[in-house]
């Protein structure tokens, strides 16, 4: 009788209302948020390479940042974005940035402004934000070919010629490094396909966990100098910038969102793996004979 009910329970478990799964997931995610803990992790080669490419920049160089993410991918990419901004500003590297995502400007520019303020950087001379450009691949092509023509003015309408930081940069090729913070399309893949090959640009990027694997071939083919993918990548980057190699002028932020997030991820993954495991156990103990 007990056996029978156990059997039945297993059968039911396989077809349980998915809201139970949602509840479980919610709990798994909430725990590390409510009771933060730290866990050890090492840094992937690809993340280290991305970090190194920034480190290798000569002082006073100017990089181009394409910040193409939206609130949805914010948890994964914002930590990287913040960390790389810290890294660049502490190195006195200047920034020209823009975005191809319509939803990005209100998100990415305030962050840049905030961190710039921390390091006392000035808009126009140390960094600038050219705003959103529609056209996706076409826009990338156009930026690659002629930056001022694509962005005659910045997001506030200031002519690009009046921004000292952007002065003299005609093409993407003129930047020693391009940093792509990319949540999907258009993003890293399009930059690689449209302009990297043609102009032999040096690029590093951060991608979401979902699209990260897509870019591995580019990294392997040296078309990307480095790549950080997903929350773990962001956390590793934070670790490099804030914990392992802090520059003396670094201003530590209050929270390291990536490192916190990776703990959430930790439990989330464990929860899913557990679910899969239990699901299979239930399936194999209850499946009728002869069914494949």
């Amino acid at each position: 009788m007990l056996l029978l009910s156990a059997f039945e329970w297993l059968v039911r478990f396989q077809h349980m209302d998915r809201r139970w799964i949602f509840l479980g997931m919610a709990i798994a995610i909430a725990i590390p948020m409510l009771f933060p803990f730290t866990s050890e992790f090492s840094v992937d080669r690809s993340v280290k390479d991305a970090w190194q490419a920034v480190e290798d920049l000569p002082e006073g160089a100017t990089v181009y940042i394409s910040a193409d993410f939206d609130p949805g991918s914010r948890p994964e990419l914002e930590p990287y974005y913040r960390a790389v901004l810290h890294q660049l500003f502490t190195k006195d590297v200047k920034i020209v940035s823009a975005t191809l995502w319509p939803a990005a400007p209100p998100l990415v520019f305030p962050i840049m402004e905030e961190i710039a303020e921390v390091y006392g950087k000035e808009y126009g001379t140390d960094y600038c934000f050219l705003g959103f450009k529609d056209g996706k691949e076409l826009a990338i092509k156009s930026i690659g070919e002629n930056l001022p023509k694509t962005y005659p003015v910045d997001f506030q309408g200031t002519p690009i010629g009046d921004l000292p930081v952007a002065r003299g940069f005609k093409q993407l090729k003129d930047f020693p490094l391009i940093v792509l913070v990319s949540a999907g399309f258009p993003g890293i893949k399009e930059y690689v396909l449209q302009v990297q090959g043609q102009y032999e640009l040096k690029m590093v990027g951060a991608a979401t966990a979902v699209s990260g694997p897509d870019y591995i071939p580019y990294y392997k083919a040296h078309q990307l100098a480095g790549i950080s993918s997903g929350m773990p990548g962001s956390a590793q980057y934070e670790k490099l910038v804030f914990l392992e190699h802090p520059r003396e002028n670094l201003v530590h932020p209050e929270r390291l969102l990536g490192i916190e997030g990776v703990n959430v991820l930790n439990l989330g993954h464990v929860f899913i793996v557990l679910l899969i495991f239990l699901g299979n156990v239930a399936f194999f103990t209850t499946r009728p004979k002869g069914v494949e």
Partner: protein
Amino acid sequence: MTARWLTLLFLLALASPAFADSAPSDAANSDDDDSSVIGVGNDSAGDDDDSAAGLEAPPGLMEAAAVAEGSMADVVKVPAPTELTVTAPKHNSGLNLDLSWTPHPDVEAARFTVARAESPDGPWEMRVEDLTPDITTYTDKVAEDPLNKGVRDQYYYRVLALPRGLRAQADEANLTKPADRFAFLDAHANSTPAIAGEPKGVWLNTSVGFLLMALIVLTVGGLMFWFTDRARKGKEVFIRRIPGIDAIEEGIGRATEMGKPVLYVPGIDELQDIQTIASVLILGEVSKKVAEYQSDIIVTCCIPLVREVADEVVKAGYYQAGYPDAYRSTNTRFISSEQFAFCAGTNGIILREKPATNIYLGRFFAESLILAETGFVNKSIQIAGTAEATQLPFFIAACDYTLIGEELFAVSAYLSGDPRLVSSLKASDWIKVFCVASIIVGTLAGSFGMDFVVQLFTAAGH
């Protein structure tokens, strides 16, 4: 079974480090090896002309330079770079010139400024002000508006080596106009002599790589015609059955029986994306089938232009099927061009109008799983297809059928049953055979150090 494992093995081979590292690496270097050098500055000439170039600056500019002269006390000139070459890139539009120079060995961290003039005497125009020392090449676009302003036969270039602190002084002097700035910089920096370059427009790219690409396009086209011709002569073309495609018609049938509409999502990318194009083509066939079943199809679009085209295509489908009166324009809907808003809107349609069959074909991103799971909860038959590798796992997990990669491009041929279309599938299959063969040859050649094969293909990629 065997075939599957062979494929797996092959895929593993494909990913072998040898291939991964050797394929599209930075082998483009060989491209311009034998480029015609138009002007070569030699060391001695450079030294001689050093001051002359500066002196020959137009008088107006000299005045501007003189304004800043006062604070120029502690700037020490650094030697100009040597060996400036100006060449037209080999297979070029005729608007670009490649500059290349060697920094003078005596200086370590000079910044470079590139200037251009239409005659050796100037007037000089600053092309780029601040190049870091590690940059020793520059590609200049000679004309912004060639159609109206024309392109000259010759342009002259000089590269200035800026001493440290010079730019800061220019800034201090508030020299914002490029012409003034350059005059100032030119006055305080050493420069290479003016080197002439002739932009050379090419009408046909004849590099090996491009020929190879043309060959592939022509072969696909040729094979397509050949197979089409065979099909016309009644030769049967065998094509593997793809259950997912058969399922489309089944899904339409299910919707008909249930008295519910079919939902069709042509991805969320722009119209020009080939996946969107493929999806719109399929939509034509699907809507024809839907019309034959006298059922309804709801199309939700993320891009207004896609909606317009989809609407036309659906209308044509109904027309073709002989039920032009059953077409309803309001069933092809623009939802939002914002990804998740679109996703939420489409989910709303799934939950409220309860389509019996959801077809997702095209380019999808993060919304894929959200759509597919909602459809699953609604108990719809779901058929997905995308060439977007990142989204395939989600579709496979949540949909009844998933068309993987190229299968998406085969659907319209399958559905229409048009022998000409089906035969074009055969043509691309043969090209695939060719690709597989090239990969194997390339991998082997690469492993045995025969780089030229690899380079052949690398060139094609650029």
